[in-house]
């Protein structure tokens, strides 16, 4: 089919492709320019003066951006580790076994993907008040599990559906302990799933805004909260700099996992929440 295609169709394809490229990067450009601008007033197409002021402020000790960066990394890492610890066994149950009520269990686990976070977080907030979890990092980590855990389970049940448990029984019959069997047989086989699912869980947690805002009560200031505050207070230059920092982990994770993102993997569904 492709050999007979006319110049017209080929150039149409090239043009729409070019348009798509421009549209995809367009919103990130003003953010990048603002971070180097020293005042950038209407109707200037480009800043009249450039400076590193916003970046110097962002990396200074007084701004709190770096503290917030570490806090966000810590919260997302904790949510990821918990999701892996809880999600791998659940994924194994759903991927390898057929049992009565399985569809119902799947529905329970997938419900948080469809029901908006705002609908559940208000209720959680009033429970967390009585448990003393409000305004704490622990509370924020727990509430981040609502969006991260379902994806981890989804990815892992896909991995376990293609996993052959015969290797485990062979290892056991040759005298390996359950712990050794898990460490030397199961874990290496499911590692790709844990890595991809874990990176996704990290990104989903990384992008949470309203859950952190409500449960953290303004005391747990993660990077998106800081970004929102600067954006709504009109400090465009600092907003630009924080925005650039904020998208770095995503780019890094993309470079690591690009070949897993064929769209056939359940992991891609995670992007619906970022």
């Amino acid at each position, binding site marked *: 089919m492709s050999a007979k295609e006319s110049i017209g169709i080929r150039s149409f394809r090239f043009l729409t492709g070019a348009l798509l490229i421009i549209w995809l990067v367009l919103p990130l450009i003003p953010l990048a320019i603002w971070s180097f601008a020293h005042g950038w007033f209407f109707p200037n197409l480009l800043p009249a003066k450039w400076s590193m002021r916003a970046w110097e402020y962002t990396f200074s000790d007084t701004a709190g951006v770096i503290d917030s960066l570490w806090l966000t990394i810590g919260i997302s890492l904790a949510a990821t580790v918990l999701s892996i610890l809880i999600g791998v066994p659940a994924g194994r149950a759903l991927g390898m076994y057929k049992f009565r009520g399985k569809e119902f269990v799947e529905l329970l686990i997938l419900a948080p993907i469809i029901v908006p976070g705002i609908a*559940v977080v208000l209720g959680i907030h009033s429970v967390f008040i009585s448990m003393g979890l409000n305004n704490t990092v622990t509370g924020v980590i727990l509430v981040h599990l609502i969006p991260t855990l379902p994806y981890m389970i989804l990815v892992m049940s896909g991995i376990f559906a293609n996993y052959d448990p015969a290797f485990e029984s062979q290892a056991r019959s040759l005298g390996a302990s359950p712990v050794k069997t898990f460490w030397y047989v199961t874990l290496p086989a499911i590692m790709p799933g844990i890595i991809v699912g874990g990176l996704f869980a990290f990104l989903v947690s990384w992008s949470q*805004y*309203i859950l952190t805002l409500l449960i953290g009560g303004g005391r747990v200031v993660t990077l998106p909260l800081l970004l929102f505050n600067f954006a709504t207070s009109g400090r465009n230059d600092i907003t630009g700099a924080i925005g650039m920092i904020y998208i770095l982990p995503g780019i890094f994770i993309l470079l690591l996992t690009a070949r897993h993102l064929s769209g056939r993997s359940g992991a891609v569904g995670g992007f619906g929440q*970022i």
Partner: protein
Amino acid sequence: MSDRLKIFLLLAPALLIIGLLFFGGLLIGLMRSFNYMPVIGLTDPDLSAYKSVFTDREFYLSFLLTFHIAFTSTVISSILAVGAALLLRRQFVGRAVVNFLFQLNLTVPHLVGAIGILYLFSQSGSFARLAAEWGMIARTSDFPALVFDPYAIGIILQYVWKEVPFIGVIVLANMQSIGEDYESVARSLGASRWQSFRHVLLPLIFPGMLSASVMVFAFTFGAYEIPAILGANFPAALPVLAYRKYTDVDLAARPEAMAMAIVIAILSGVMIYLYVRYSRRRIRT
């Protein structure tokens, strides 16, 4: 150990977390929306919160706006995503770049996209500056309001920017695993390009597109930060309105906020159900 016990133990931690946090949160929200909270001495459930929500004109305006945002964004994103996937399954100059940007875009949080759209389309944004440069406008107020506007154009632009790659990646993977054989057969039997797309390819990629667009609808209906950055003050999107009620200095507004949260949960469930049913029927005939 029996299989049943094993399955139970494997699932227990996940069900405990999701049950306690997610369904617990929903349940407490439901109780509070009925003014029922025995712990703090409220033992007589009533419907007053729902009454004040459903008699408030702002609620209906917010609902219409939120539905418009979610519906329009989902439909536009789905159509453009299929177009983009059709483009990306062919060889052309720059395909690798588009592919990479598609995936890059998936990792950028919505909040960053919203700020980017704000800087592009606001009345002193990049496009207004371009218009001024070309002499099309003299003052910032001459530029059409595309953010903080009643039609939520900025919000929809942001969602389209973010969701076309999301749906597109899933649809493209579907197309690649289906291959082109079916379409070739249809074409050799005399079908036009459009017919082979409409009656052969589209029904095949539809399930994948539908599940992706359901996720988009749910997200766009319930998201907070994007309408909070790009939306008008009145009417605000439902999640923004619920958050405002919840953080109101008047604590009496909290049950109202809870009622709104429950309404958001129910509405998104109902609309997703209808959307799936309706579009399945449409595409089969």
